[in-house]
């Protein structure tokens, strides 16, 4: 088989898979190189499944809104895999005046971008979700937000892209990118050198090491975050939930299990042993956070907890960008823990950008060269 395709994507996560799918749909030949043994084993399948617009930075909000309007509703049908997309709103919860302030600030910014989101009080919150404790006094409410299944969405894009002829190679860690005559051309792996006219680096935090091989940097750091899942429970509510304090977030999945993420506050300092191993305190801490909001879940059994690395960007917003300094090179990384919900839109727009030179949504605020030192 030829080692040359029109495009190489480095990273078999949801960004890589979705981009591969939209590129293949346009008729391009694509190779996806995945370093690990499994497709979608990184953050793509370790996140809490939020498909949110509210709470986002205004620079990425247009992409989120466009995806929710244009891609998510028909995604299961398009991929032939149930991605379990539920659009029943997002409640971002608060209990204190400080929380109220944080939520109000986020809400004001989103409204300015045209998002339907507003602050609601305790009574209205419990009218939407009667299981919430009385401690919850305020929330931002965005009725067009929702959630989906990150596992089937990631693998659904993979399945569909593969059907369209995209070549996926796993266990293919990339050592370096190489330019030929000033233009990006090759990807060096232990087994082969792959060639393409254009290359997308969508390898999470590992993108930083790869980009360095052609002299490009994205300021980000890895951060280990944790999630957990309960056994299946009777259906309780359909909203996506978050909190002002970010002590937990999550939803009830179609399967009935609750998927929650949370933070202990020590995440920036978490260590690992080369694998995203759970910490001994993360799941317990998240449980306490959840029970403060949902006393009714106290008896729900946790069946599994896991950790994953975020590619945490210096300004908490992704880099989705062509790299003019290295012609033919594109970057999609630094999603900072909120990439899942915008992944379809990102994949679609990156494909547009790579083929037509112009994405539908203006992504110039997400350029790789936006990071400037203090003046």
């Amino acid at each position, binding site marked *: 088989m030829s080692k040359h395709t029109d495009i190489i994507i480095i990273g078999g996560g949801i960004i890589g898979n979705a981009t591969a799918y939209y590129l293949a749909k346009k008729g391009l030949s694509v190779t996806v190189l995945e370093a690990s043994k499994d497709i979608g084993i990184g953050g793509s399948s370790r996140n809490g499944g939020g498909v949110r617009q509210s709470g986002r930075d205004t620079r990425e909000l247009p992409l989120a809104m466009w995806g929710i309007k244009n891609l998510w509703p028909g995604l299961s049908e398009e991929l032939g895999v149930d991605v379990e997309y539920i659009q029943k709103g997002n409640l971002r919860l608060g209990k204190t005046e400080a929380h109220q302030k944080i939520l109000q600030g986020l809400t004001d910014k989103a409204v300015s971008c045209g998002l339907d989101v507003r602050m609601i009080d305790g009574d209205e919150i419990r009218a939407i979700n009667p299981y919430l404790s009385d401690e919850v006094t305020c929330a931002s409410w965005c009725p067009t937000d929702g959630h989906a299944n990150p596992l089937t969405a990631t693998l659904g894009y993979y399945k569909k892209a593969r059907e369209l002829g995209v070549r996926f190679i796993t266990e293919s860690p990339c050592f370096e990118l190489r330019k030929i005559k000033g233009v990006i051309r090759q990807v060096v792996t232990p087994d082969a050198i792959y060639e393409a006219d254009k290359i997308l680096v969508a390898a999470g935090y590992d993108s930083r090491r790869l980009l360095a091989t052609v002299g490009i940097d994205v300021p980000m750091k890895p951060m280990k975050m944790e999630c957990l899942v309960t056994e299946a429970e009777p259906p309780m509510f359909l909203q996506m939930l978050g909190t002002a304090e970010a002590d937990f977030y999550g939803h009830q999945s179609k399967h009935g299990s609750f998927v929650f993420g949370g933070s202990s506050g020590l995440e920036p300092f978490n260590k690992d042993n080369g694998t995203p191993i759970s910490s001994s305190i993360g*799941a317990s801490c998240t449980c306490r956070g959840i029970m403060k909001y949902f006393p009714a879940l106290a008896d729900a059994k946790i069946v599994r907890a896991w950790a994953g690395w975020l590619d945490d960007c210096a300004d908490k917003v992704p880099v989705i960008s062509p790299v003019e300094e290295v012609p033919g090179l594109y970057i999609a990384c630094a999603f900072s823990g909120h990439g899942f919900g915008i992944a379809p839109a990102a994949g679609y727009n990156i494909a547009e950008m790579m083929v037509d030179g112009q994405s539908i949504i203006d992504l110039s605020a997400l350029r790789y060269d936006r990071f400037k030192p203090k003046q």
Partner: protein
Amino acid sequence: MKSINDRSQDIGPFVSQTDDGVIICRCEEITKGEIRQAIHDGMFTVNEIRRYLRSGMGLCQGQTCGRLVKNIVVQELDVIPAQLDPATSRSPMRPVEMKVLGNEEVTHV
């Protein structure tokens, strides 16, 4: 040795078998046929199948079906068992109520 890394390789068409209806993952009620179909959808590893179908994600965490799923992949892809990693192991090793898991003595890490 045949590699499973090239996901474009031809593994032949999906041909239904008489025992496709047998349940393999009891917790999530996933059948052999569903697992075989997932392999033909491109899910070549135990982790991918697990994430695609939920096999091994139930209360027993794959204690019973892990081995069975692996054997199906071995058969379907005609590879040797050592080429396939078992699914990831995750805490808690046994299901535990949220109120219990949250009830820890919090100490210095």
